[in-house]
């Protein structure tokens, strides 16, 4: 076991003579955040049937990804799945809903309408051309409407972003938004097989991976390479 020191938040340090368990709290916190996303039931039009109803059903089952607790209240949700066109009259409400959600909050824009306006991009006097004109979007899932598998692809992309994105030292720092489009020529069996593997892999916290990723400050390296005793100087925090 190790002891928690104050100089490196979340890092466990070697106890002289004992075994070492080194990890980062970031890894565990982000894993927990990514694995229990609570979506807001925000469906404006067609995509809502595919994104919120078909995925909630027994065939596709959003619960496999730990995101099935759909909440109608924004105050209890942390994932906003934009399902359907945003029109100018709805835009202020969407902004309000987003701001009512608790931090950290994530947004997946599904469907062509929320990405660019989709089929309603030309000659429409009401459609907002892309939801990112109103709120920041993390993952774009294209399609009209996307298949439920495609939403899962987007959800896994978001989970990956969450796991590698925010840290305790740099709260609020996110990865840039990505488009989560399925590659061309991929079959349903491929997706399902890939997801099966991912579900096993992604639901295990890889401590060794966390250790490898952790950039040790120089002081700690010296300490681990033979110098005894607790580090009193406190030198070398900050990666």
């Amino acid at each position, binding site marked *: 076991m190790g002891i928690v020191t104050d100089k490196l938040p979340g890092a466990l340090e070697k106890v002289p003579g004992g075994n070492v368990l080194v990890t980062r709290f970031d890894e565990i916190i982000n894993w927990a955040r990514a694995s229990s996303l609570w979506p807001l*039931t*925000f*469906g*404006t*039009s*067609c995509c*809502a*049937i*595919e994104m919120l*109803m*078909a995925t*909630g*059903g*027994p*065939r596709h089952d959003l619960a496999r990804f730990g995101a099935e607790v759909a909440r*109608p209240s*924004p105050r209890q949700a942390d994932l906003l799945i934009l399902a*359907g*066109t945003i*029109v100018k*009259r*709805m835009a202020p*409400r969407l902004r309000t*809903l987003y701001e009512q959600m608790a931090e950290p909050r994530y947004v997946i824009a599904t469907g062509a309408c929320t990405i660019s306006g989709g*089929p*309603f991009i*030309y*000659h*429409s*006097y*009401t*459609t907002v051309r892309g939801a990112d004109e109103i709120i920041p979007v993390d993952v774009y899932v294209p399609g*009209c*409407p996307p*298949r439920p598998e495609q939403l899962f692809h987007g959800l896994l992309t978001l989970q990956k972003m969450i796991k590698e994105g925010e840290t305790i030292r740099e709260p609020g720092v996110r990865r840039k938004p990505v488009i989560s489009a399925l590659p061309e020529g991929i079959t349903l069996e491929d997706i399902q097989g890939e997801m099966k593997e991912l579900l096993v892999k992604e639901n295990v916290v890889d401590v060794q991976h966390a250790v490898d990723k952790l950039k040790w400050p120089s002081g700690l390296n010296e300490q681990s390479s033979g110098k005894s005793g607790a580090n009193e100087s406190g030198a070398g925090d900050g990666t």
Partner: protein
Amino acid sequence: MTVEVSSLKELVEQASGDDRSPDTQEYFVNMGPQHPSTHGVLRLVLKLDGERVLRCIPVLGYIHRSIEKISEHMNYMNCVHLTDRMDYLSSIMNNWAVSKAVEEAAGIEVNSRIQYIRTIFAELERIQSHQLWWGVLGMDLGAFTPFLYGIRDREVLNDVMEETVGARLTMNYVLPGGLMADIHPNFVHRVKEFIKYFRPKLDEYDDLLTNNVIIQERLRNVGILSPQTAVQYGATGPVLRGSGVAFDLRKDHPYGVYDQADFEVPVGTIGDSWDRYWVRVEEMRQSLNIVEQLLDNIPPGDFLVKKLNSKIKIPEGRYYSQLETARGVLGVFIASDKKDEPYRLHYRSPNFNNLWCLEPMIKGDYIASLIGAMSSLDLVIPDIDR
């Protein structure tokens, strides 16, 4: 020690002086646009007295995408593809409505194979739509299990249709002058399998929800819509038939090949939420009957009467055509000025008229009954706003 119990009226008078009466005060509550049981972004302004609904005013426009205006800049082939996004649960019927209007106006005759396939797909889509409604009605009334059952069977049917159509929801299958593609070789076989699969499931639905005491208590004698009011408000579809008016375009003005199928039009008695529920569940059985009768008789032929041409021109004039979707009569009005684009394209959507029946249905009733009554209307909001 004794406690003096005074009446509520006295307490209120003591607390608030003479100008306050002990009666409850009327107040307004906004329901929506973000609400789990308004099925989208419908906003209802409710005037309440305690828990009683005095007025229920729908406020629209939260998903108005100006489909009619966009259509004025599109040719008739392209107009069809926007209609899937209106009533997305009966997308094939929406496609068919526009195609039918264009065909009638431009004088395009389609062969009977096309008509057969269109009719079969329309009925399959009707079943699919009612399956989803059935599940969601259970969820609105507080039971999550029906939702799982409804979606489970919907996915089975979805697979059958997806094999031919290539899409799960917005199908874009029917075009003016024919169909997007011919039916898949497996289609007939798989639909037969589905019918065999789904008939016993309908009995399961009855065991789970129809014969459930709680559901009956919440739906019976709630949201009564008299036939006079229903006709006055222009309600159509299961809402009108639930009130006891046996009006069904499939029977009264047959289009497609409905005249070759033998089916009944289920009709309610007093027009409460229960009647509308029963009509829809019964319609699923009738749709299965229609599909079963037509399936073996699909004649050979082309799936498109002539090569796809985006320059369909309609003679000058005004045209109106209508058909029965899963929610009622969808009318398509085309005003043409001899160009390949419509001068004006207007949809008479069934949900818009059905929505306004909510206030006469629910006036004076509890707010909890409003949820069940609204669910029994089976509203699709993008179809109202377009």
